[in-house]
């Protein structure tokens, strides 16, 4: 089980779907961010699994995961600054209150 590619891929797919559900459902901006982190992690698992089972000669997948983690850090810092800024402006971090760009 732990040596088959498909199980890792299933985990990845499941994690992605759960994260997707969270992004589409939660009203709280921080909760949305948390779900986004789940998605990023699922992709990391996927990369690692492919590296181990399919492209086994180089450790390119791990390098990519390093990049993903670094990017996630940068993104979270910006995102949290934005959330705090929005909280200052609007008084709440409910995403359904931020609908000024309506058509």
């Amino acid at each position: 089980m732990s040596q088959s590619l498909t199980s890792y891929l299933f985990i990845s797919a499941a994690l992605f779907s759960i994260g997707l559900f969270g992004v589409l459902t939660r009203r709280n901006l921080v909760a949305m961010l948390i779900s986004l982190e789940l998605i990023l992690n699922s992709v990391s698992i996927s990369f690692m699994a492919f590296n181990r089972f399919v492209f086994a000669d180089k450790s390119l997948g791990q390098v990519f995961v390093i990049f993903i983690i670094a990017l996630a850090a940068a993104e979270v810092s910006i995102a949290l600054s934005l959330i705090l800024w929005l909280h200052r402006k609007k008084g709440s971090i409910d995403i359904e209150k931020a609908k000024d760009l309506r058509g």
Partner: protein
Amino acid sequence: MMITEIVFAALVIIILTGALLAVGLKNVFYNALALILCLFGVAALFIYLNSEFLAIMEVIVYIGAISIAIIFAIMLSRPMTQKTEPENRGKVIRSAVLSALFFGVLAKVIASTAWPIASEQGDYSIKGIGKMLLSTQALPFEVISLILLIAIIGALVLSSPEDNAS
């Protein structure tokens, strides 16, 4: 062999449970804690995938830095004391259906493809990663550092007080 499989199964359960809790619980602080649980599971999974370095990195960076920052934000914006409205039922059903569909498509593709499993095993040591970072992947490496710089500056700008606009 058996025990690795049992631990693997436990890890899967931890990960999925953490994820579900991270998404489903009402209190956003509990969501962050559930995220940390899930990430621990993911780090352990990395060990299974022959990359101890990355497992440690995951713990240090993701759990140690990112999740803490998230908790900072939760504390600073005090969403716990605010009354949040319940989510719209239609919205929940819509996203549930979409996620389920997505998972279905992915699962079918995963199950039906004949993945070409490689026979050889390469170099997964940290030495190999370092060599790669400084030779073939040098460009992304530099770019990442640039991105981090920009992120720091951006965060500083965004969080500076209003009357100091510059």
